[in-house]
């Protein structure tokens, strides 16, 4: 009986022993920064890679499930991810990372933009 309990515990360990904080970064730069700062306490994944144009990304099913299971979103903002991040958030049903919650971080909200036009045309 004891052995069985031990075996069950061992089997379950990989499911339980996961990183404390799952971070979903929109670009690899934010993933690298978050991993550097968080060390072993966080697991940062980037939604895009350096070979992609982060403005034109499909709201893929794999990204939706990543947003569903994340604790913190770190993105550039300033409408860079406008074409896909809102769709991921709408489909992922994760209340903890909606804009306005502590789980949602847009870097552009915390720096002073340079050469920002008051009005713009396409």
């Amino acid at each position, binding site marked *: 009986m004891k052995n069985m309990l031990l075996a069950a515990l061992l089997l379950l360990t990989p499911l339980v022993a996961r990183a404390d904080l799952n971070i979903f970064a929109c670009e690899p730069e934010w993933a690298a920064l978050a991993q550097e700062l968080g060390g072993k306490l966080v697991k940062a994944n980037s939604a*895009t890679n350096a*070979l992609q144009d982060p403005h034109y990304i499909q709201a893929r099913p794999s990204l*939706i499930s990543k947003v569903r299971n994340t604790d913190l979103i770190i993105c550039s903002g300033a409408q860079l991810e406008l074409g896909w991040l809102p769709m991921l958030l709408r489909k*992922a049903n994760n209340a903890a990372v909606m804009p306005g919650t502590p789980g949602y971080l847009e870097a552009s909200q915390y*720096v002073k933009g340079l050469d920002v036009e008051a009005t713009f045309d*396409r």
Partner: protein
Amino acid sequence: MRTLPFVMLFFCLIGTTTSTQAQTSAELADLRAELAQMRADYEERITQLEQRLAVAEQKNIRQPTEPDPQTTEYRQADNTTKPVARAGNQSSNPDIGVIFQGQAWRHSGGSDDYLIPGFPLAGEAGPLPEGLSLGEIELNISGNVDDKFTAWLTVPIAVEDGEVEVELEEAWIETLALPAGLSLRVGRFFSNIGYLNDKHRHSWNFVDQPLAYQVFLGNQYLDDGAQLRWLAPTDFYLELGAEVTRGDRYPAGGAANSGFGTYTLHARSGGDIGFSHSWQAGISYLQADAQERASGSEDSPLMFTGTTRLMMAEFVWKWAPNGNNNQRNFVFQTEYLWRNEDGFYNHSEDPILAYDTDQQGWYAQAVYQPFPRWRMGVRYDQLSSSDPGQSFIGTDLMPTERNPYRYSIMADWSNSEFSRLRLQYTFDRAGMLDDNQWGLQYTFSIGAHGAHSF
């Protein structure tokens, strides 16, 4: 006694002069020492200052933007007055966007009285009108109600038979903060069944919907109701959903069962294969009770009362080198629809006819973008039906021997994600006559433009 102060003054003076003389040399030495001390002090202070400057300069290199009082204030304000949840766009509330569509379209056979024998046509089903015409002008208004709810409104403005018609396509409220991966939507919405059903007209890859969507869903099934979606907390994508709708629109009708007549279910999964490939697959089911549902011509419609069951299977595969969709990409999609309708038809003059028929439809399409801005695509779609019985001979519900089918090719050019010109040719062997259809369609968008789904 008056002399006393003078005497005292005298002694004082003598005392000072003598002491000055005696102290001069000592004082000079003191002063020199003091000066030297001061110089040393200043030198020390200067070196200290220089060190501090060096440190400050190093800090500056590491952190080029000194915290600006304005930004700091903004950040503090932000933390205290939590900004209302907005999906990335903070330009205005609500977001307003308008999509313009129109076309020049030709038929070799003529578009009037289009019908597909054996398949009731209702809603917006059917080919595009001939000649120069305006498509739907789609007005989209959306925004967050507060941190827990978001709202969406789509009002298409269309010209039908010379009259301007304002419709209500979508008007829904959705939750943003339900726990456990749930979300609830209430209002009027495009049902989440199938792959194409909830796609807005401007994001279609061809000017029209596949035949199966036209005959089984009236182009797209939308209705008033509630939708619950649940996303599994797993690494792979799994979404389950259910909807209850009023049942007032094709393929339902007449708001049967006191307006709770129709329900749908769907399950969807998907994933990536490497960086370049991604896929999505799903199945959906719709069951509706129809009460005197009208289809066919408006003057003498066919009325159906009974139960309609629709099963749908979808598969989409997308390829883009390294996932860089903007440069080059390829999309293959296919759907299979199966429907059973069990009930009876009545026609104004004819007697009531019992009807129990199985029908199928499917399409497959491929769209390729060889380089930015240009795309080309092909689509094949087909329908088939079982025999409804002897009593339907001579009616529009009697299918022909030959299964209805079409094939289409298209090429489009997009100057940006907000503009598109499309050329399409369709060979239609679904209607009464073989029909060659071709034309040019434009789609332009101003204002806010929401993100598209996969």
